[in-house]
């Protein structure tokens, strides 16, 4: 089963390697991993997506907690939560299909970041993971030059925060 785990870590040298190394050393898989410092730049927040049964996920949480620079770990999958990923796509000049393409961007709340109508465009979408998959499918006929996307960021709903204190 797919699990989304959020982690607060000390924003220090080597912490990303410790987390990634833990997954490879213990044979856990890691689908996506996002990490960036928070406003309090001594702390970084990670969102990682992994798969495993309850036993494996329990071990992953414990092993993450065992890493010295890890401050807090939470599996948000069981709570009502939100996830959003971001996708950037460079598409070929669309000629006659330009209007259809722009409709698509609008339909998915996308943005045109760079517009070279004669050669290419760069589009940006922020959405749920499965919607981003659908967007890629929909864009395929237009001819994509390159794509890049983030893994999802996640946050529990409700008034409580996932913070250091």
């Amino acid at each position: 089963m797919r699990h989304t785990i959020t982690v607060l870590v000390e924003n220090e040298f080597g912490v990303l390697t410790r987390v990634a190394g833990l997954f490879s050393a213990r044979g856990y898989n890691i689908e996506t991993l996002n990490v960036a410092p928070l406003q309090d730049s001594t702390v970084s927040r990670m969102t990682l997506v992994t798969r495993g049964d309850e036993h494996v996920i329990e071990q992953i949480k414990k092993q993450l907690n065992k890493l010295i620079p890890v401050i807090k770990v939470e599996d948000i999958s069981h709570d009502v939560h939100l996830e959003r990923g971001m996708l950037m796509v460079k598409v070929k000049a669309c000629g006659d299909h330009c209007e259809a393409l722009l409709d698509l961007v609008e339909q998915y709340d996308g943005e045109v970041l760079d517009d070279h109508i004669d050669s290419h465009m760069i589009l940006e979408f922020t959405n749920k993971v499965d919607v981003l998959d659908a967007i890629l499918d929909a864009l395929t006929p237009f001819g994509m030059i390159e794509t890049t996307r983030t893994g999802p960021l996640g946050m529990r709903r409700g008034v409580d925060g996932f913070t250091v204190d």
Partner: protein
Amino acid sequence: MKLSGAEILVECLKREGVDTIFGYPGGAVLQIYDAIFKQDHFKHYLVRHEQGALHAASGYARASGKCGVALVTSGPGATNAVTGLADALADSTPIVCFSGQVPSGLIGNDAFQEADVVGITRSATKHNFLVKHAEDLALVIRQAFHIATTGRPGPVLVDIPKDISINICEFEWPEAVNMRSYQPVTSGHPGQIKKAVRKMLTAQRPVIYSGGGIMNAAGSAALLRELSHTINAPVTNTLMGLGGIPYDDTHFLGMLGMHGTYEANMAVSHCDLLVAIGARFDDRVTGKIEAFAPDATIIHVDVDPSSISKNVHAHLPIVGDVKVVLTQLLEEIARKNGQPDEIALALWWEQITEWRAVDSLYFEQPQDGPIMPQSVIRKTHALTDGDAIVATDVGQHQMWTAQHYGFRKANRFLTSGGLGTMGYGLPAGVGAQIAMPNERVVVFTGDASIQMCIQELATLYQYKLPVVIIILNNAYMGMVRQWQEMFYESRYSHSYFDALPDFVKLAEAYGGVGMRVDQVSELDAILQAAFEVTGESFVLVDVAVSREENVYPMVPAGAALNEMVLS
């Protein structure tokens, strides 16, 4: 006060109360060695190989209960230390290891004697640090000792680039360590304690299974024994847990697992309550996991939450320091004025008596035949009153020591349990003898294992350490040969030594006393003579033992504990 990085290191070690460090100099740590030369707060012991430094630090730590400290140079110095770090991690031994590193400006340039030591040791340590500024050094060292010695203990490495050891900065000693990301739990959850006591007092067939956690929680062995007698439950120890309860205690079943006793393995297989205390359900303990304690409710007390329900599901987990939790359990029993179910327990003990009668460690010593290795261990027990600090290497001799020595106290058996490191015994004996100068230290080893760190004989000689080394010499890698006999149709692929050195001459060449025994009739006299060598010399006794003797009982890998082969 302005100090160089090297002086800060020395000052911090002094303030941490360090009296002993083990190390080997080299280019990247010359500044530190110079600072050590100028101080007299602690003594530095020169080993002959960095692996030896780490194992000596481990032996020192485990015999004394203090934190072991090692110092190695960059590159090969640090990579040689990796085995010792991994060993300490597997066996939860508190060690702080300082390694030199090339100057900061050269890091990443493939400089002379450069290795990515923080990268290499990341998975061989509890935590590691690369010091980037001399100003950070004191705090990093403070944190390193804190991490190594608290929670589940383990090795911590501090990598110090050469310029950091030279740079001068203001020295500030951090009075307290407070890490928001590292706060080990010490006391058990009161609700869980209550539930556990309820289970213990209603159990009909309880077994306590204790491990190395008892060694790491000073003073917990007496509490373990008290709990066992209070709830009238038998105790079995893991390899690392031997000495947790005296070998001759009425409630002791012996070691469990692959080479455990019949009574211990049968009791675990049939119990209705298994109380695991500071043990981690290693595969050498459980055998086939589905068949391990199949009818038991499992209570698991451990300071490391990740050990709980990792291999075997714990019905009642208690995270906490073993000593604190044992105290809580005993207090709760006393508060309830709790009594165990003695009627059911009488039947259980009757059953255990039957299993004990199998006498699974029985062996015969023919009067004119080859020397049985078990005899050597038992005679050594008698000569040392079961009270020596005993270090071993890895293999058959290690299992025979575990089965036959009979330990009276905790922290007396120093062995490589988790990693299974051949070469551990001799340097661990060095460290133990330095930690406990007034105690008798014995190293049991094999003809293969001793050669993995034999250079440390020079350390014994240099520091006049009167360690007694007993080689159970069967001219085989005995445990490898045993498996080849049992599972590979006796094809002894590369497990035979036909070029063994003369160990007696070797001992003499290293400045010690060497002795050899090959007749049963001489065994008593020579062992006695070995223990009577006075002065400050180490003694090495090379005992020619029965060549193809196997360690029994044995649970074949992957089999259930009750499917053990008795002989």
